[in-house]
């Protein structure tokens, strides 16, 4: 008989609260990067999704993602409205209440669509954003979460994703790129300055994201023992190393150690260590951070050179960072860290890297196609973008009839 462990339960509930904080933190991170006329609309994206997915998740999202498996593709609706999800342990955590596991996973479901909002910032119609978020969570996030964590086909294949490299970051990063391409560039993109209106807000947001990420990764151990401690340490190390790397590369490339670059670099490192945090040791986390700072920086330079208006660089940080992290898991994983998992390439199991490649390709392909279809349908019935005059005026005034600052 499974018995609830108070230490595990306390850590999991605290971790859920830490991950919850990440979504408003993301609102500040993104909010500082946009122009003053769009800051409220940008923060609202994250805050609204926190509310929207909190309800969607308990009504049907959790059941689709983690409910009884249907052909390896989706969970059943047996747990809709949390029927059968109670205070006793469920199938995903032997020592914690099923409800605690559910609410921890809820916070992942919340932040993932919020990450995408950085790509269509400053030009998307609020109603289109609302419909998109609900459809995307149901049709993209819930199925992919089931594939990897709910006993679906990627779990059966043996793909390793400790806290969401494929489920959270690849799906959101790739969807962000598709959204940026479908929506098109902002008015004035490339011809007028679009500098961040408050860099301090962005650094505050990045710092709170870092803080919350300890719950994201170390909480994913679902126990409060050594594995959680390992995830905590490698998370911090990779974030720091990626921030140092990004700042250094930008210093060499552009002649100044960018503050925003250090903040973005830390987030890139946190993204990349996410899938690996329960499988790699601290030395590997330094290399993962080094790769994140380099690859993500390069990806952003490339998207800008290609004139893709991924407004807040979601693809470069989350799409590339998540891909690097998923592949790095296949390279650096070791059963010394996690005896319940598998070795990676360096420990003598090259097949694991092949499985990770399959998981990456499947996540990219499914997210890209589904996001494209969802956006096209919404464009048909609602319209994705605000009219040009409203975009020039700003979304705070035209979508929300409010102003962020009375200065």
């Amino acid at each position, binding site marked *: 008989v499974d018995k609830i462990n108070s230490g595990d339960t306390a850590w999991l509930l605290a971790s859920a609260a830490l991950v919850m904080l990440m979504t408003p933190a993301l609102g500040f991170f993104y909010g500082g990067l946009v122009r003053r006329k769009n800051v409220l609309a940008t923060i609202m994206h994250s805050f609204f999704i926190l509310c929207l997915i909190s309800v969607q998740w308990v009504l049907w999202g959790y059941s689709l993602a983690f409910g009884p498996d249907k052909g390896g593709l989706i969970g059943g609706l047996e747990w809709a409205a949390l029927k059968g999800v109670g205070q006793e342990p469920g199938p995903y955590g032997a020592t914690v209440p099923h409800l605690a596991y559910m609410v921890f996973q809820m916070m992942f479901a919340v932040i993932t669509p919020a990450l995408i909002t950085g790509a269509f910032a400053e030009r998307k119609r609020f109603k289109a954003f609302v419909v998109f978020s609900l459809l995307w969570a149901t049709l993209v996030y819930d199925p992919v979460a089931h594939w990897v964590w709910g006993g679906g086909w990627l779990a059966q294949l043996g793909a390793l994703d400790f806290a969401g490299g494929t489920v959270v970051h690849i799906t959101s990063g790739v969807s962000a790129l598709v959204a940026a391409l479908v929506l098109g560039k902002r008015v004035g993109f490339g011809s007028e300055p679009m500098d961040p209106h408050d860099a301090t807000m962005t650094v505050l947001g990045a710092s709170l994201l870092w803080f919350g990420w300890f719950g994201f990764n170390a909480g994913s151990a679902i126990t409060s023992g050594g594995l959680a401690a390992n995830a905590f340490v490698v998370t911090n190390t990779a974030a720091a190393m990626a921030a140092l790397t990004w700042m250094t590369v930008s210093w060499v490339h552009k002649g100044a150690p960018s503050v925003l670059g250090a903040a973005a670099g830390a987030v890139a490192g946190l993204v990349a260590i996410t899938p690996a945090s329960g499988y790699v040791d601290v030395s590997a986390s330094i290399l993962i951070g080094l790769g994140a700072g380099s690859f993500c920086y390069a990806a952003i330079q490339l998207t800008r050179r290609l004139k893709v208006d991924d407004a807040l660089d979601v693809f470069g940080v989350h799409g590339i960072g998540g891909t690097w992290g998923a592949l790095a898991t296949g390279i650096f994983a070791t059963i010394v860290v996690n005896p319940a998992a598998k070795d990676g390439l360096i420990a003598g199991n090259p097949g694991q890297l092949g499985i990770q490649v399959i998981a990456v390709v499947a996540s990219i392909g499914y997210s890209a196609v589904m996001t494209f279809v969802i956006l096209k349908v919404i464009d048909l019935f609602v319209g994705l973008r605000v009219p040009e005059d409203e975009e020039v*005026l700003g979304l705070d*005034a035209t979508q929300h009839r409010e102003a962020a600052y009375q200065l």
Partner: protein
Amino acid sequence: MPELDGTSIVAIASFAALVLAWLMAPTSSVVVAAREPLPAAA
């Protein structure tokens, strides 16, 4: 399929009602905004 009780059915219906209200809401407040003083754009 789940066996939902009455409270759960009403809960799902109330969320569906909110979604319906969002779909039917005005797509933009620019007309109203144009009549009122606006904050200075950055």
